[in-house]
């Protein structure tokens, strides 16, 4: 696979704006941004407790990559997974209710922020322990392969996860068995509170693919078109039986590691520099320039999304809490 994404300028005008999938991407990224901003407020209001790991700034990776999957494909994500769950089509209401610990949450409130899971959408796990998202995805991919189903698994992890043994174990097995899997590393430059360079022996995490005999591709994680194109090629490669690909998406999280982290360790100006390459603004500028979606229409869309996110959080707050009796059924299969 050729990691060449620079020459993909769109030349032909889309037939009709509504038919342009990028508008749906744009809308989804707005939804994720509004969702994450609202989560912060819900903490202030005491409706969400514990911790949460927000993904503002990384929306293009989730939406671009996950939209390369088919409906029957599998997805595993991590504790910074709100954006990925929404990108896979989880309703904001089910996600909010989960964060609020309510029965209407995707996991009936027992999972919480770090475990957004929805088997009806192939979102088979959201892991709060680093590395497991990769090995479990290899298993789902291998089950499909052994059963002759043309299904691909996509696994997300962060840059910090590329240092844990499970990451390398999963890559080795996937390559060895030519598992139909796509690994997506969101390199947001910080593993928890530590800059990547202080914990990691390579600058480009895609280099870690070489050690396991698979292509490693670097993509601009702020450019959703590039992410989608790269992921689409990797998914096609996996589905055709050629094996796994490791995609490193260079991106940035606007917030700290978790709710209580003000991210004071970041050098002055770094956040502002990244915000100049905000993934939503970048796509918005392209859509406006190509007259697919005007700046005004974008504002209207943002208002619309904000309204639906507001309504979703309000509705979620009305959900009841599951009972202890219901919860007991979640431990063992009946």
């Amino acid at each position, binding site marked *: 696979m050729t990691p060449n994404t620079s020459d993909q300028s769109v030349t032909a005008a889309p037939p009709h704006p509504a038919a342009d999938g990028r508008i749906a991407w744009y809308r989804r990224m707005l939804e994720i941004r509004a969702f994450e901003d609202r989560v912060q407020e819900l903490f202030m209001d005491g409706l969400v407790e514990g911790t949460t790991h927000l993904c503002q700034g990384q929306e293009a990776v989730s939406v671009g990559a996950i939209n390369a999957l088919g409906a029957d494909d599998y997805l595993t994500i991590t504790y910074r997974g709100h954006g990925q769950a929404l990108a896979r089509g989880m309703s904001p209401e089910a996600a909010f209710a989960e964060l609020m610990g309510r029965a209407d*949450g995707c996991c009936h409130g027992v999972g919480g922020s770090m475990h957004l899971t929805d*088997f009806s959408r192939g979102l088979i796990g959201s892991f709060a322990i680093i*590395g497991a998202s990769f*090995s479990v995805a290899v298993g789902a991919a291998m089950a499909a392969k052994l059963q002759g189903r043309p299904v691909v698994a996509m696994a997300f992890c962060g840059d910090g996860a590329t240092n844990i043994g499970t990451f390398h174990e999963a890559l080795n097995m996937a390559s060895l068995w030519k598992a139909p899997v796509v690994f997506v590393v969101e390199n947001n430059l910080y593993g928890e509170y530590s800059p990547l360079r202080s914990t990691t022996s390579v600058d480009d995490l895609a280099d870690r693919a070489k050690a396991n005999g698979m292509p490693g591709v670097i993509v601009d994680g702020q450019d959703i078109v590039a992410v989608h194109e790269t992921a689409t090629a990797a998914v096609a490669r996996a589905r055709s039986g050629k094996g796994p690909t490791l995609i490193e998406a260079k991106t940035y999280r606007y917030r700290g590691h978790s709710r209580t982290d003000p991210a004071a360790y970041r050098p002055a100006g770094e956040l502002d520099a990244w915000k100049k390459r905000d993934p939503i603004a970048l796509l918005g500028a392209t859509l406006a320039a190509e007259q697919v979606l005007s700046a005004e229409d974008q504002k209207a869309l943002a208002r619309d999304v904000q309204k639906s996110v507001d309504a979703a959080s309000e509705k979620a707050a009305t959900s009841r809490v599951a009972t202890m009796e219901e919860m007991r059924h979640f431990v063992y299969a009946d």
Partner: protein
Amino acid sequence: MQTEARPAQTAPTVEMTYREAVAAAIMDEMAADPAVILMGEDVGASGGVFKTNEGVVERFGEARVLNTPICENGFLGVALGMAVTGLRPVVEIMFSDFLPTAGDAIVNELPKFRFMSGGQTRVPITVRAIGGGTGRFGTQHSATGESWYLQLPGLKVAAAASPSAAYGLLRAAIREDDPVLVFEHKGLLLRRGAVVRDASSIREVGRAAVVRSGSDVTVVATLLMADRALTAAEQLSQEGIDAEVIDLQWLRPLDFDAVERSVRRTGRLVVVEEQVHLAGWGATVISELAMRGVQFARPPRAVSLPDDVLVPYSPALEDQVIPSVDAIATTIRETCG
């Protein structure tokens, strides 16, 4: 000691070794359900390091027998991914001592996966860990590890003390829709015993087996210790001591009721463990019976590994560390004296 309705016996009773019984259970479940696959280190052509899978790959082919690299945490994660997408993996852990390298999978993932998803999925995985001493394998290859994973709701734990138990427990485990950790014992692999190779032998989950009835003292054990306790009990019967021996079979769920019923009759309890006593199933059994108000005629006793050393290589020393038939008999005798 099974009370529920069970399938009638259709197969003849045959003699086989413990490891043949393990292989038979795997093959019979693979034959019964195409979703069952076997995976682990060297489980393919070599039949497993302990020959517990002999004949499996020849019969079912490489598509259902997956040789894994040496990476327990990774391949247990793979098994988890398979289990929630349609397969029923049986995973061999070559030595119980290796299972802690899969700490995340066995502690954080398998038992918690269904729960955290709010019950969206079932997790039908069987993890077989081959453990135990007497093999002169040294400090890092001799643990049973049987009590290390008892504090994990979501997991079921079994331990096989005989060929028929190995066959019946493993088939039961593979049929469960929950993760089951099955402990096997290296010291029993060549033990021969009678096995009925059909569904009538499948053991009920959570049910202990009274392997010898007696009226004077209740001896509770697992794995090789159950085997040795039975031998000790037979010897003691010649001295007029009538010991009841209970093979727990399941450590989670643990059949406290069976032990309680027995001790309420005998008034005496000895737990025999190939592990240190502190915080193991033996201590839990004694604690549970105390909480149930069971009156003991004599204080309960434990025969276990010493708490102040580890399992050594030296054969002469290893034999002093792992409870012998004599040591078990001595404690039973003292309890009855």
